[in-house]
């Protein structure tokens, strides 16, 4: 990536990024999602686990049998679908945030050190990464959950354990490119130590690529959470999740379709938005696409 392009991005930063419709759209949705997950207790009309055996399978409010009390209807145990939908965002956001942060931290640390120092450090780290990536992700995560038990923390752990190596590869590759740049050489000739160079010259110039892969990672994290919850290996028994809602609702989707459909729609919307955000970020920041 030429220093000129990187330099342009830093000077325009926020304005530059938000000029992309994709980034704008994606950011709004993601911010909305995070807000919803934080404000869930305030927004949701019902407790997500509050059962009402007397009113199961209530349809959404626009049906005659429905009511505005449960705007999206109820499930087999009379739990409010809308409230469960809102509370499920907490599981998704938790895994997306925690999983991504630690994957990024571990993956970046390994990647930067391997890419900057090369030699023995690089070889050892990359052997580990290669070996790691040969494990099928699905099996690895299922095995992990089987050993550690269900729960959001373990789901986040599964994401980290599986994906850090992919992260490391990308960061290492980009670091290799950056360290060959003239300004790294110039910094050395001015007397800066390796540590200072990594801190002030390598890391700041990794921000563009990091932004891109972090958004992708969030999308992966949420997908993993939903899939694991769908098969019952994700959230704990009474925690609402789009995955578990879909699993439960699929049992009677022919008749009471809303229980499975609304989480599906929500999920698709969220994943799509994050992917659009990532695509927009890539268009604006990824060196290989930049032409001007």
């Amino acid at each position, binding site marked *: 990536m030429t*220093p*000129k392009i990187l330099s342009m991005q*830093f*000077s325009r930063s926020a304005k530059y990024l938000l000029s992309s419709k994709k980034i704008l759209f994606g950011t709004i949705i993601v911010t909305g999602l995070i807000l919803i997950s934080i404000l869930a207790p305030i927004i949701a009309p019902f407790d997500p686990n509050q059962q009402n055996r007397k009113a199961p399978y209530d349809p959404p409010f626009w049906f005659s049998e429905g009511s505005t009390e449960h705007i999206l209807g109820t499930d087999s145990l009379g739990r409010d679908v809308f409230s469960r939908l809102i509370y499920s965002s907490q599981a998704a956001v938790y895994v997306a945030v925690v999983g991504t942060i630690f994957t990024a931290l571990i993956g970046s640390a390994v990647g930067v050190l391997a890419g900057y120092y090369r030699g023995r450090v690089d070889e050892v780290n990359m052997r580990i990464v290669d070996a790691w990536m040969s494990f099928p992700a699905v099996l690895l995560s299922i095995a992990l959950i089987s050993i550690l038990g269900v729960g959001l923390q373990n789901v986040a752990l599964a994401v980290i354990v599986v994906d850090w190596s992919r992260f490391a590869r990308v960061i290492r590759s980009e670091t290799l490119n950056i360290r060959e740049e003239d300004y790294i050489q110039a910094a050395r*000739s001015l*007397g800066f130590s390796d540590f200072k160079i990594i801190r*002030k010259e390598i890391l700041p110039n990794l*921000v563009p690529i990091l932004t891109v892969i972090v958004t992708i990672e969030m999308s992966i994290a949420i997908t993993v959470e939903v899939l694991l919850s769908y098969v019952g290996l994700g959230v704990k028994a009474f925690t609402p999740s789009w995955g578990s809602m879909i699993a439960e609702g699929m049992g009677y989707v022919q008749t009471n379709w809303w229980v499975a459909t609304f989480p599906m729609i929500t999920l698709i919307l969220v994943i799509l938005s994050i992917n659009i955000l990532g695509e927009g970020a890539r268009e604006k920041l990824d060196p290989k696409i930049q032409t001007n």
Partner: protein
Amino acid sequence: MATLEVRCLKTYFYQNSSVTKAVDGPSFDIREKEIFGLVGESGAGKTLTGRSILRLVPKPGKIVGEVRFKGRNLLSLSEKEIRKIRGKDISAIPQDPLSSLNPAFKIEDQMVDVLRLHLALSKQESKHRSEVLLHQVGIADPHSVLNKYPHQLSGGMSQRVMIAIAFSCEPTLVIADEPTTALDVITQLQIIDLMRRTQETHGTAILFVTHNLWLAARICSRIGVMYAGRLVENASVEKLFESPRHPYTQALLDTIPRHDVKSGTLPIIEGSMPNLANLPVGCNFAPRCPMKISRCLKRDPEEMKIDPDHKVSCFLNTESEKNG
């Protein structure tokens, strides 16, 4: 004692079974406050000589010899010690200024970083000092430049910034590596003049590395001519231009375009530099030399002193010494 005394500097690159002798034994002095030029074709080893002095040679390269800076042999210092010297006692002006600045930070941040690293100034003091430094290199509006990012500067402007950074910590020696090659001709002259003025003000010595002999003559007091890793001639500018003693120097002088001679084609030097991993037996220039004698293809010529200020490595001179 000269500020810099280079003795038999050798920078060899060891790869598999081959050895590339990129810098093959030059010895020269740079005196206090003088501007010494190191001139040669691309690949002659002049840039690498400058890098070897600061010990900035990439991995398979190994540096041996002596590089005495104010009496201390730089090659025997620890990594920590040489880092203290880089940027402070000996600094460098790079070839391409635009790509030598960190794209992630404003100019002010980068200049402050250097000042705080070597001079332990406060942020406020560093900011103020940066403004003064930019003013000294002829930037009319330092404040605006300080707040810009590297890509927002022109080539000439960014080279002025690099010069400001190079002189910011009052170095004793500045290694300028083709500082004007990336610039247009008019800016080149401006930058050269700026360097001369700055050098005079600060009393710094400069090692001026270039392939442009004409440019070197404008600013240097003495010039060393390098070919295939070796120093073939070393003389004051006057002596070098008036009575060049090495055929390569003579050929280089012939290639300088002269506006008063409007004849046909520019003379060129036939052939190309030998492969530094596979040097010929004898003088490195002999294969291309129009005046070689049999001895030139058998042994390496040794350095000879013609005058106190004129050394040359060429058998032709030994011959004339014998005869004359």
